[in-house]
């Protein structure tokens, strides 16, 4: 007799979502988590008294609205609040402000270039068109293109219909788009570097590609296709930090009778007669279950917690070669006041959302060059956000915290592994750069947490600290994610599934991977589906 119908490994948001849907369908589920807190990379942590950092993921736009609604996450305490106003900082000190009103945004762009102000309408239209197609795939299981099963054929036809509905010209453009670099894509629209740069950051965040690398244009789309309440491209903050998302899903899970066990690292997925049968925890406990779901990334799942001999030939190699490269760092800073930035007006609607220290396409590419050489740039791309200006629960009144995402940061340095000293030097580089644009910034610092890919891997468990659980390049997207032939959440060992961002539709706090995997598991169990459809179909 198994103790559980299903055990889910890893209490990140996708694992919790998967468990919640299985529990909702009546299964007896357990989520095991290695840390003494839940959330994985969607987590809120009070590392300095009075300040709550979203110390990994920090903003949200991918969360599927229909899942939020269906799991009643608002009642479980989740509120997503859109934030406004990102400033882009150029190398020469110029700024480009993103005003919320269309008129003001247009005037700001026109100040820089009349041409680019007009072109912005065109690129937004094209990105919306591209987004619409992808958005419809998020809560669907990718078809197996080699299969003749009616369901796969049906899903392939669905995809074909969606792509054909673009019209011939746009279909060609779309196919080309997937292999373009962000810079090449932006070159087709804009003439000024600052406008291109302001959009190029979305093409490199979280990826080991540069703005000139083919494939980075899809990364850009991945970052702008989300929405907040139907406003595509908008970004939101979770009230209480990103952990509020995981906590709300956990609360929903518990309301359906599911269990969560923290401080329970999994040593091995147990396989008996070619079927997954349970997990062995590092404390020696063995827990049996009919179904084992891994929310860990594909590399970690198959190379760390499974025996090679339990896997069919070739899987270990696929996992070992799975592209999951660490490229990002994070510096979370508690501040005694709101920082002031050069060339930014004291306008609360634009000076306290995001700060993109992107410099220029050239600067971004140079930072990528450093990453390739196993070091970090002394002029990195930084995406800052000040959540405390929008969320009263994450810092004392009048005080703030700034989340800084740094692209690039290597998982290992050319001269050896990360040390505390080198980590601190990396943090120093970041605050030195911010200080250049915000004189006096350093004086505001109350506490700082510096995270290189090494810390992210150690704490969260993401291989190399890759935030997407694997690169979002076309060789690892849709029916190729994580590996061709295994994109439908079922893994090569029977009764074993994956539900993390290593599966379709990939990285981001969307809950889609977890929900899609739950749908497949329920189908295999011949249970009624409890996972809703996406609600973007009549966009």
């Amino acid at each position, binding site marked *: 007799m198994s103790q559980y119908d299903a055990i889910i490994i890893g209490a990140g948001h996708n694992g919790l979502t998967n468990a919640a849907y299985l529990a909702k369908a009546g299964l007896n589920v357990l989520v095991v988590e290695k840390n003494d807190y839940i959330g994985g990379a969607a987590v809120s942590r009070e590392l300095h008294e009075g300040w709550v950092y979203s110390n990994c993921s920090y903003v949200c736009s991918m969360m599927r609205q229909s899942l939020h609604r269906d799991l009643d996450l*608002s009642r479980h305490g989740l509120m997503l609040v859109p934030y406004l106003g990102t400033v882009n900082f150029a190398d020469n000190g110029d700024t480009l402000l993103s005003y919320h009103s269309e008129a003001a945004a247009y005037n700001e762009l026109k100040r820089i270039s009349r041409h680019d102000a007009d072109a912005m309408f065109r690129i937004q239209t094209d990105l919306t068109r591209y987004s619409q197609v992808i958005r419809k795939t998020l809560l669907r299981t990718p078809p197996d293109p080699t299969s003749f099963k009616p369901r796969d054929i049906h899903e392939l036809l669905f995809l074909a219909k969606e792509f054909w509905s673009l019209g011939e010209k746009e279909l060609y453009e779309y196919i080309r788009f997937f292999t373009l670099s962000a810079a090449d894509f932006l070159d087709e629209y804009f003439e000024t570097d600052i406008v291109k740069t302001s959009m190029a950051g979305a093409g490199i965040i979280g990826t080991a590609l540069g703005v000139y690398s083919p494939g980075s244009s899809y990364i850009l789309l991945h970052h702008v296709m989300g929405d907040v309440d139907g406003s595509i491209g908008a970004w939101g903050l979770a009230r209480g930090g990103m952990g509020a998302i995981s906590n709300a899903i956990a609360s929903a899970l518990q309301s359906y009778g599911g269990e969560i066990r923290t401080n329970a690292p999994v040593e091995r997925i147990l396989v008996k007669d070619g079927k997954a049968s349970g997990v062995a925890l590092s404390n020696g406990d063995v827990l049996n279950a009919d179904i084992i779901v891994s929310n860990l990334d594909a590399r970690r799942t198959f190379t760390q917690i499974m025996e090679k001999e339990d896997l069919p030939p070739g899987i270990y190699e696929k996992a070992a070669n799975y592209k999951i490269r660490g490229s990002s760092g994070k510096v979370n800073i508690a501040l005694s006041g709101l920082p002031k930035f050069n060339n930014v007006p004291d306008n609360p609607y634009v000076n306290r959302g995001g700060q993109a220290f992107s410099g220029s396409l050239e600067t971004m590419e140079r930072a990528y060059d450093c990453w390739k050489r196993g070091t970090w740039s002394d002029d990195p791309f930084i995406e800052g956000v000040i959540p405390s200006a929008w969320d009263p629960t994450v810092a004392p009144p009048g005080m703030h915290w700034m989340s800084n995402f740094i692209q690039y940061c290597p998982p290992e340095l050319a001269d050896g592994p990360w040390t505390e000293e080198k980590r601190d030097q990396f943090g120093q580089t970041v605050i030195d750069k911010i200080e250049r644009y915000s004189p006096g910034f350093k004086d505001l610092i109350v506490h700082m947490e510096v995270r290189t890919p090494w810390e992210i891997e150690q704490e969260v468990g993401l291989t190399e600290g890759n935030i997407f659980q694997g690169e979002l390049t076309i060789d690892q997207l849709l029916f190729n994610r994580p590996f061709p032939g295994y994109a439908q959440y079922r893994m090569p060992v029977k009764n074993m599934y994956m539900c993390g961002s290593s599966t379709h539709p990939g990285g981001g706090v969307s809950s889609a991977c977890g929900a899609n995997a739950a749908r497949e598991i329920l189908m295999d169990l011949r249970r009624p589906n409890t996972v809703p459809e996406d609600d973007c179909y009549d966009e």
Partner: protein
Amino acid sequence: MSSFDLAGERPKPSHFQPRLDEFNLHEAWSTWNGYKFAEYYYEVEFEYFCVRNLCGTYDISPMQKYIISGPDAEAMLDRMVTRNVKKMKENRVSYVLWCTNEGRVIDDGTIFRLGPDEFMLTCGSPSTAWLKKSCVGFDDLTIRDRSDDLAGLSLQGPTSCAVLKKMGLAGIENAKPFTIHYFEFGGAKLMVSRTGFSGDLGYELWIDAEHALSLWDAVYAAGKDYGIHPYGEQATNMLRLEAGFIMPGYEFNEALKTVNFQYDQTPYELNLGWMVDLKKPHFNGRNALIQEAQRGPKYTLTRLDIEGNKPADGSFIYNSKKCKTDIGYVTSAMWSPVVKANIALAMIETKYLGGELWAEISYEKELRQYYKVARCSAQDAPFWTPERAKLTPPADV
């Protein structure tokens, strides 16, 4: 134009006008009772989120405010409104309705019991004439219309209590919902009630008009670190719909302004039967309402959760997916960003309420018109009821 005298054309400025002007970046003004009144200040959803996440202020000065005092005041109001005013304790506020003799709703408002013989009645529409009618037989009272000289500022949202504490209103955290408290403010008397129209934690601040600007400045100085921002009519409409509150012009047509027979509503139709005290002796509309209570209302205002995410503004409600027989109509609808639901209030023929409910929703996509039929489910509770709205003392955030 300079040779014309257009002064009479202009709406009257609010007591807070100079401050409102600073915030109203897009000149998005409408009017309320002759006063200039903001549709929105910066952007509707931004202001809505200020109230749900931080705090916001709403200029309620254009509301009508009548001070009714004298030995007959209690009896007069008790005869006028459907709730029992005699049971009201001093320094308490009560939400009330008043009806025609036929039991149709004239308006809703709030009664503040300021003393044994002193009350303040607030309401959306001017009511001097109706009040005068209601006074027949009650000679020992006076009515003072303070609509133009009493300023009102509503402060709503999770950080609202923290702002008032910061402002120095000692003990405000102990104020329970629907209570009245007084504070000394710059030599004037500041009245604070824990009331509002947002369904959330909130307070309303009342002060003589000449102190309006200094009150504003004090509130905004205290609110600086708590995300304070003014919000306008459109955000209010979102907030009140989530809270399930009714609005004239949406859920009900004021009886005295209704042309067509029974195109106005009874309290029972508005699902506000709990506000009608049939046990108290005569009050306006009592006989008609006794009959209505026995018969049951023809329509019932119903909260709907509608599938999909297209707001059902102006939709008909049907009893089957085939949409053959319409059984009602949507009065207000929106996508609720905090509840993450497609919500609406709808007037539905009571006899159909146990069955299926479908809304025919029309929407537009790049100029083309579409419609879809969506299943609706009736909800018992308001869409948005955070614990903090009732908690005393409330948390700071």
